[in-house]
């Protein structure tokens, strides 16, 4: 009778998880240990993970996983303190306990090795850009393709001057830590030099207070460089509102009341892009837009006369100023792009024709 009962219990007992190992999670800021194991071959409802500090007695439960998972990340471990782990296979009856893992301690790392490809490409792209900047400094002639939207800037400013109407420059709605806003401020500097030269009124409404201060100083400096510091007015560049649609309403109001001959919508935009661009189009202004927000590009292309698409926004200040050094940087960008294109073609060929796991290699 007793023998039969023991045999039945032996049949019910599950095989415990095997090969439990614990290692510090790589490439992180510490406080995490990865626990792995081989799942029990028997049906289980899940696993419970226990932890014991070195020199300690108690085993504390640190987490649970599902029945098919063989990995658990113990987050929140104190750095530099060794722990070992056990995994319990949970069943309807008694749990089956694995043997303990070796000791492991979490530690923060000083370099994220996952980013090595990013670091390599950073150096390659920087090399291209700096090489062509150096070439430009030495006086090399660099060809830059024509950008219709930027060629139209002079014409648009001239039109406003002839019509005696102002130019509206919207530097986007983002903050100064957005590279698109910095690119927009650079373009504003070039536009302001031309409005100073022609004596055309300029209106620059701002949404971000930091962008407002930078834009004001940029316009002021441009007027000084153009030899017209007297033509600069503090009221040209002003702060409107921080709220997205309050700002859009204010700019729409300016477009309707002041009837600018030319609207520049350059920088980062969100849902208000079409509200601004359509109002500008109905007011009869020539509109030059530029953004790197891909989802807003179709709206600008539809409602504006010229649109700077993506990278053209970043090339604009160099293109307008014709500064050889800045043009050198554009050339560097072009070569970097050619390299990416070449790598995509080679990678695709290797993956498709030869089955090389290109993505995994990266």
């Amino acid at each position, binding site marked *: 009778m007793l023998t039969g009962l023991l045999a039945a219990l032996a049949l019910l007992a599950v095989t415990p998880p095997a090969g439990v190992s614990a290692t510090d999670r790589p490439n992180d800021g510490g406080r995490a240990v990865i626990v792995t194991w081989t799942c029990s071959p028997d049906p289980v409802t899940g696993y419970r993970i226990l932890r014991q500090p070195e020199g300690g007695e108690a085993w504390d439960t640190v987490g649970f996983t599902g029945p098919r998972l063989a990995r658990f990340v113990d987050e929140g471990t104190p750095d530099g303190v060794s722990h070992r782990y056990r995994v319990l296979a949970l069943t309807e009856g008694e749990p089956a306990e694995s043997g303990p893992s070796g000791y492991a301690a979490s530690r923060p790392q000083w370099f994220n090795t996952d980013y090595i490809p990013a670091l390599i490409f950073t150096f390659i792209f920087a090399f291209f850009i700096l090489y062509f900047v150096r070439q430009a400094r030495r006086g090399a002639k660099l060809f830059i393709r024509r950008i219709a939207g930027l060629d139209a800037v002079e014409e648009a400013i001239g039109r406003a001057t002839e019509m005696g109407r102002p130019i509206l420059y919207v530097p986007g709605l983002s903050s100064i830590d957005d590279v698109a806003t910095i690119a927009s401020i650079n373009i504003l500097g070039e536009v302001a030099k031309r409005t100073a030269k022609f004596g055309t009124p300029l209106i620059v409404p701002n949404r971000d207070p930091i962008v407002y201060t930078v834009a004001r*100083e940029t316009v002021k400096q441009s007027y000084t460089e153009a030899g017209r510091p007297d033509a600069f007015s503090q009221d040209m560049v002003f702060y409107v509102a921080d709220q997205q649609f309050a700002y859009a309403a204010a700019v729409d109001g300016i477009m309707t009341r002041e009837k600018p001959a030319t609207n520049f919508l350059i920088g980062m935009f969100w849902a208000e892009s079409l509200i601004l661009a359509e109002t500008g189009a109905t007011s009869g202004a020539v509109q030059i837009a530029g953004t790197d927000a891909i989802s807003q590009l179709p709206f600008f292309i539809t409602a504006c006369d010229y649109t700077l698409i993506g990278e053209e926004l970043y090339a604009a200040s160099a293109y307008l100023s014709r500064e050889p050094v800045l043009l050198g940087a554009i050339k560097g960008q072009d070569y970097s792009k050619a390299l990416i294109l070449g790598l995509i073609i080679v990678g695709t060929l290797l993956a498709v024709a030869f089955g090389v796991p290109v993505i995994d290699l990266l």
Partner: protein
Amino acid sequence: MKRQLPLLIVLVVGIFASVAFFIPHPIVRSVDEVFRNDVLRIIAAFSLVLGVGSILRHHFIKIKRKAEHWPFSYITLVALFVSAVIGLFGGIDPSRPGILPTQVGGFSFHIQTLFSNMMVPLAATMFALLAFFMASAAYRAFRARNFEATLLLVAAFILMLGAVPLTRIIIPPLPDFAEWILAVPNTAAKRGIQFGVSLGMFATSLKILLGIERGWLGGGGS
């Protein structure tokens, strides 16, 4: 000095931020967080004072010159003053009252109440205009004036038809074709633009870090 100091700060902080991207160590991360959040907020607080000064000056000038629609400037100034006073002294909401009596019976005009009941509906109204602007923009875009516009019209027509459930019964392959247009040619074009944008951002950042591009300093060229 006026130019060299900002350039030096940009160089040091910019290089630190770039290097911090590759270092997960908490010491580096926490310093990076201080720069990204705390320092930026402090600068923004100072700029906000300049921003409010700009609004006041702009509207005072309009009133003084009796520019077109100048009475609206009074509304802006009164709204600015009232919301500032209520925001500073009137409490946030009924559960967090301030020193001003901003509750009259059941009627509350705390700053959160004003925001939820005035700013939010006004912003939603502006946002709602987008639907009408989309219709007028679509009308302009879909006029088949040239080859590109015709392509756009055809693609949009297929996508719109593909989104209608009945199309799967009438023309079974069309919804899948519409999805293919979105997933393949559209994604390819978007990624191409993204490559250019990323490189443009990288080049602009590098030019600013190295002092090649100085437009952000208030002009000054390269």
